[in-house]
Structure formats: structure tokens, C-alpha cells
């Protein structure tokens, strides 16, 4: 008897889930949005956003015109720098920098070579346009590296005959290994971050849209008189939309991110999908709350856009937690996207397992239960 009732309960949920799926597949606008987000949007973000120094234009004021100055100048080469030629004076340099025609101007003083040979320390000036701090920082650090290498080579040449090889000098060799993304491909980071943003938007938008559409068309009254409980109305919407989002995630991961950016998946893909499913469930609670707060689809979309902002800010995608002010860092505990971001990078790029991520998993689960119960409670109150 009891099991019969249980089966009936689930039968109804399944029937409603099928109904939600059918309804979604008959809505060309929403479908187009979903397809665009999971394919083109992620691809554009991964392909488009590059925070690398690549052929930055440099010009030179060479007051010395010696072999040494030429040697230094020729070290500013692609892929980082693109030497655009020589200019005569500061005035021209200022003008070009103002207009953004060059990123940096290298200024080599008079008697550069003579002073070098005499063993005097020489300063070379680099004027950098830092209105774009990313470019400015990278250009300065590469230029510093280039001049330091030049200086070291020069010094070694001078000291060489006496002291011999570097082996016999008290220096530390800098052996660094960049882990997880050794070639520094921006596409790996950007495409995953965009995918997570897309998942967040859709897992709020889709359940909310499905619920509000019933309100808009008045079909909610039909549901109210049917033998369905509020949970049986809500759960199918969440289940159906979660299925669609997980399918979209799979398409995005296997057909866009992995083939286009050659992402090597280090960890377990099932674990990634399990975490995503948990996350979608958590955020759909926010979606249900949005549905109770609005009357039309237009309002739903606006609220989603509005709520996306704090969630994104506190996710740690662009600014890692350690770089945040203390208050915001504390607030991050309440942003579900923070947990998903940490875990996704950890699983996909760092190869972390469940054991390492246990506290994050627990946090997301608790947050999910809280959000979902809140959404259901609001809906019940309005509905009943």
C-alpha cells in the first residue's frame, strides 16, 4: 500500500517532468538562448580573452649608437615585444605614448658602452603606458628580465676568463615549474569560468521561467486544483531543467572546451558532473525564489541579471579569495559559485579527488539545502 502511494507520487513527478521538457523543447527562443550560451558564448570567451603580452610595440631612443646598445635593443623581440624603430627625442616619445601608438619607450643614455666597459653601473630608462595595468605589469617584468639577462651575460663575459663557469659561482639557479597549465593557455581558464557562469545563469533562469510562465498564462490555477502537491509541481521543473543544463554542460565540455582548447582533464569527469548537479540543485532554489518575486518573464530576466552580479563578484573567478578584503572574503562563503569554481578547477585542471574537496562539498550541500528549502517555502506560501 505504502509502496503504491510512493510509486504514484513519483509517477506524477515523472509525468510532470516530461511535460516540462516538452514545453521547453517547443520554445524556440529559450532553446536558442541555451544553445548559444553553451556553445558560442563559451568558445568566444575562451578564444577571445587573452591576458598575455604579445607583440607589444616598443620604440627606442638610442643616445649611444654603440655595439652594446644595439645588442640590448635587439633583445626586445617577438613574441613579447615588437620593435617599431627608433625615435629622436622625449617629445616624440610622449606624443606616441599619449596616443597609445606604442606601449613602451626604451631610453638608452649616452656613453652606455663606455661606462659598461669601465665597470660602472648604467641605468636604462623604460617609459611604460600603464593605463592598462595588465600590459604595463607584464611589459615591465619582461623588460626587466631582458635587461638583467643582458647585464648578466655582459658580466659573465667580463668575469669569465678568471672565474670560469657559473657552476663555480655562489648563485641560486631559479628552477620553477608552473603547474596545471604549464604553457599558460588563457583559453583553459577562461572557457571553464565562462561555462560555470552560464550554468549559474541558466540554473536560475530556467526553473524561474518555467514557473512564471504558468503564472503568466494562468495555468497555475489548473495545477492548483490538480491532485499535485506544491513540491510535485516544483520538483519536476527543477529536475527537467537540471537535466537540460547537465546535457548542455556535457556538450560544452566534450564538443567545445576539450576539442577547441585541448584541455587535458586531470580528475574524474563523473565527479565533476556530480558536483555540477549538486550546484544546479542549489541555485535552482534561488530561481524558485525569483519566480515568487516576479509576475512576468521580463521581470524574471531582470532579477536574474541583478542577482548574477553579487554571485559573480563573490565567486573568486577573477579575484581569488586571498586578494579580497576580509569582509568580502567572509561573504564568499554564501556564494554557491565560489564552491563550484574552486571544485571545478581542482577537478578538471588539478586532478583533485573527493577527499581533498570534502569541506567544499559539504559547504555546497548545506548551502544548497538552505537555498532550496527557502525557495520551496516561499513558493508554498504564495501558492497555498
Amino acid at each position: 500500500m505504502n509502496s503504491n502511494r510512493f510509486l504514484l507520487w513519483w509517477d506524477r513527478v515523472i509525468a510532470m517532468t516530461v511535460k516540462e521538457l516538452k514545453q521547453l523543447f517547443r520554445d524556440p527562443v529559450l532553446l536558442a538562448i541555451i544553445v548559444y550560451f553553451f556553445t558560442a558564448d563559451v568558445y568566444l570567451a575562451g578564444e577571445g580573452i587573452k591576458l598575455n603580452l604579445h607583440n607589444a610595440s616598443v620604440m627606442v631612443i638610442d643616445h649611444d649608437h654603440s655595439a652594446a646598445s644595439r645588442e640590448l635593443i635587439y633583445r626586445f623581440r617577438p613574441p613579447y615585444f615588437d620593435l617599431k624603430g627608433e625615435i629622436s627625442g622625449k617629445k616624440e616619445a610622449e606624443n606616441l605614448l599619449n596616443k597609445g601608438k606604442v606601449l613602451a619607450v626604451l631610453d638608452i643614455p649616452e656613453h652606455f658602452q663606455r661606462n659598461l666597459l669601465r665597470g660602472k653601473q648604467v641605468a636604462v630608462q623604460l617609459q611604460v603606458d600603464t593605463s592598462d595595468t595588465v600590459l604595463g605589469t607584464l611589459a615591465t617584468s619582461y623588460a626587466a628580465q631582458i635587461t638583467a639577462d643582458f647585464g648578466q651575460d655582459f658580466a659573465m663575459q667580463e668575469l669569465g676568463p678568471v672565474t670560469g663557469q657559473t657552476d663555480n659561482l655562489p648563485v641560486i639557479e631559479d628552477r620553477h615549474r608552473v603547474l596545471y597549465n604549464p604553457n599558460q593557455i588563457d583559453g583553459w581558464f577562461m572557457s571553464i569560468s565562462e561555462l560555470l557562469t552560464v550554468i549559474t545563469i541558466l540554473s536560475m533562469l530556467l526553473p524561474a521561467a518555467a514557473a512564471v510562465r504558468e503564472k503568466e498564462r494562468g495555468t497555475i490555477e489548473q495545477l492548483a486544483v490538480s491532485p499535485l502537491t506544491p513540491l510535485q509541481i516544483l520538483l519536476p521543473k527543477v529536475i527537467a531543467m537540471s537535466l537540460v543544463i547537465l546535457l548542455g554542460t556535457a556538450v560544452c565540455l566534450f564538443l567545445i572546451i576539450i576539442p577547441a582548447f585541448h584541455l587535458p582533464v586531470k580528475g574524474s569527469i563523473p565527479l565533476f558532473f556530480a558536483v555540477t548537479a549538486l550546484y544546479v540543485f542549489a541555485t535552482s532554489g534561488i530561481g524558485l525564489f525569483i519566480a515568487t518575486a516576479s509576475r512576468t518573464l521580463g521581470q524574471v530576466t531582470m532579477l536574474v541579471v541583478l542577482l548574477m552580479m553579487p554571485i559573480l563578484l563573490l565567486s573568486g573567478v577573477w579575484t581569488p579569495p586571498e586578494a579580497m578584503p576580509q569582509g568580502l572574503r567572509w561573504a564568499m562563503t554564501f556564494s554557491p559559485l565560489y564552491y563550484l569554481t574552486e571544485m571545478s578547477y581542482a577537478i578538471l585542471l588539478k586532478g583533485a579527488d573527493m577527499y581533498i574537496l570534502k569541506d567544499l562539498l559539504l559547504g555546497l550541500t548545506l548551502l544548497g539545502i538552505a537555498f532550496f528549502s527557502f525557495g520551496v517555502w516561499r513558493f508554498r506560501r504564495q501558492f497555498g
Partner: protein
Amino acid sequence: MNLSRVWAVAYKEWREVLRDRLFFTMAFVLPLCIFLVLGWGISFDVEKIPFAVLDQDRTAMSRDFLHRFIDSRYFNYKGDVRSEREFDALLAHSDIRFAIVIPPKFQERLLAGQSTSVQSLIDGVFPYRGQVTRSYVSGIIANFNRQSLAGYLTGARGLSQEQALSRVAPVLLEPRYLYNQALRSQWSMASGLMMLVLMVTPPFLTALGVVREKENGSIYNIYASTISRSEFILGKFLPYLLISCLNILVLWWVVMNVFGTPFKGDPLFYYAASVIYVICTAGVGLLVSLLVQTQVAAITLTMVISFVPAMLYSGLLVPIESMEPGTRFEAHLFPTLYYLRISWGSFLKGLGWAELWFEVAALMLYAVILWVVGYLNFHKRPRR
């Protein structure tokens, strides 16, 4: 063109905006929200990098070396580990972003005038942060080496400390950071975000204003009335222009007072250029409103066609210099690139009409084209 009709439409529109509370809030709150979220959320300052240490030497010299990291404001010391294997979990869980290993016999070898090596592991998930971390590490090591070598040379060759130092590092690079001396990424971000927010919100408002009438069906009143299409378009647009002009001032205030960015240019010039830019981007909204029938579609389409050029083709996140020639050409087809130059030019570089007239002319041309195309395609007798 009958001005009293234009005025009537504008007044009606203004009342509508005032009475739709959600829309009204969105008109002022959304731009501010996007602004604050991205302004605080995207920080490219790499500081307080959490790191851990494996010191296999444990001597005075190794501690001295490590203190160069521990005392730096760029690094945040998280503790010692006992074996290299412990790093894996710490790095995978993002507890640390960087790890350093000091080999045994570190002090012994250096004192004997032999080279040694230090291994560092850097989290490269976000390539830009990884690169900057690497350059900090190299900088600290290079600095240590210079002192160590100089000390060695004073002993071995009887040079004075100063002579030895200039022998070891014959060339110094003196960077001069123009326009943003402290390299604060928030200055560039905040002034650059004016471009992004003013690209997204004016079309958003304009498109919704027209599409709302389409969705409600009230546009048929317009079709049937004596008002001409130019009067209607102008009347529709005026209230949104007013809102956007106020928003420019609000955002400007935020850039200067919340983010502390200096304004070095000509305020009148910047305001005029911003209004032209807003007219231009609102034209994008007009075009969107011609294409779609529902508010949801209008919001989504506006988001897509305004966010993509603002994020990818403006030079804010992806420097124009780093683009491939094809993409660079595309970037010049969007208004965002020109306005970003105006924004950075006005805030950080202190430029005005003399240097930026071309960018303003480009925006004007853009605005004229968009509005003429919009006007020609708006018909009072819809063809279906």
C-alpha cells in the same frame, strides 16, 4: 516634425518608467551594480599570494633567503611542510598558490662558492597570476644572486662592495610608469568600465521601452495615431537619454570617489563624448527592438550584442596589441574601442579634443549610421 508630439510621447514614456518600480530601479541600480561588481570583482593586482615552504637545509642562510619572501607584501606565508608530497593537496585545494623547496646543503654550497638550485611550484590555473608570481620569484632570486656574487667578488678579487655590485649588475632598468604610477589595476578597470556599462545599459533601456509596447500590443495605438515615426522614435528615446546622462554623472562620481581614480582631462570634453557614445549605444537598442517581439528576447539579445564587443573587442580585457590582425580589424568596427581610448585618455592621460577628435568623430559617424538604419527600418505598418 512636431515638437509637441515628441514631447507628449516623451512625457508618456517618462510616466511609464516612473510607475514601473522594477524598471525604474533597474534603470539606475543595474548600471551601478554592474559597475561595482566588475570594478571590485576584477582585480589584476597580484598580492598576498599564499605560499608554503619546504626547507631541507635549515641554516641561517636558508632562513635569510626565505625571509625575502615572507617579508614581502606580495607573498603571504602559510607555514612549513615536512615533505614535498604535502604540497599536492595544499595546491589542489588552493590553500597555497606557490611552494618553494630549498635543497639540502644550500648554505654549504653557497659558502663554498658553488651554485645551488631552488625549486618553486607555481599554480598556473589563472595564467596571468601565474606569470606575475613567477616574475616576483625570479626577481627575488636575482636580487639574492647579485648580493651573493658581489660578496664573493669582494672576497675573491679585492674589489670594493660598490665596484663589485656594478660589475655583477652592470645594467639596471628604471621603469617609469606613466599615467598610473602606482600600477593600480582598479584605476584602469574603473575608468574602463564606464565604456562597458554605458555600452550595456542604454540599449537595454531603449530596446525594452519599444518592445514593451510591442508585447502589450499598445504599439498599435502608435501605428494608428497621427504621430510620425521620427517623432515617435525621438520621443521614446528622450527619457532614456536623460536617464543615461544622469547615469554618466553617477558612474563618473563613483570612478573618482569610490575607486579613487584621478580625472586629469577636460570634463566638458569627456561629458560631451560620453553623451555621443550613449546616443550611439542606444541606437543599438533601437535596432534590437526592431528585430524581436518579446522582452525576454530583447534582454538576451542586447546582452549578447553589447557584452561581447565590450568585453572582447574593446581592449579592456584583451589588449588590442595582442590580437591577431583579423581580430584587430574587427575590433575597429565597434564603438567600444574608441570610447575606451577616450575614457582612459581623459581619466589617466589628461588628453582632450586635440588628441582625441578622431575617436569622437568615429563615434558620431557610428551614431548617425545606427539611427538612420533604425529609422529606415521602423515602419508604422508592420509587414508580416
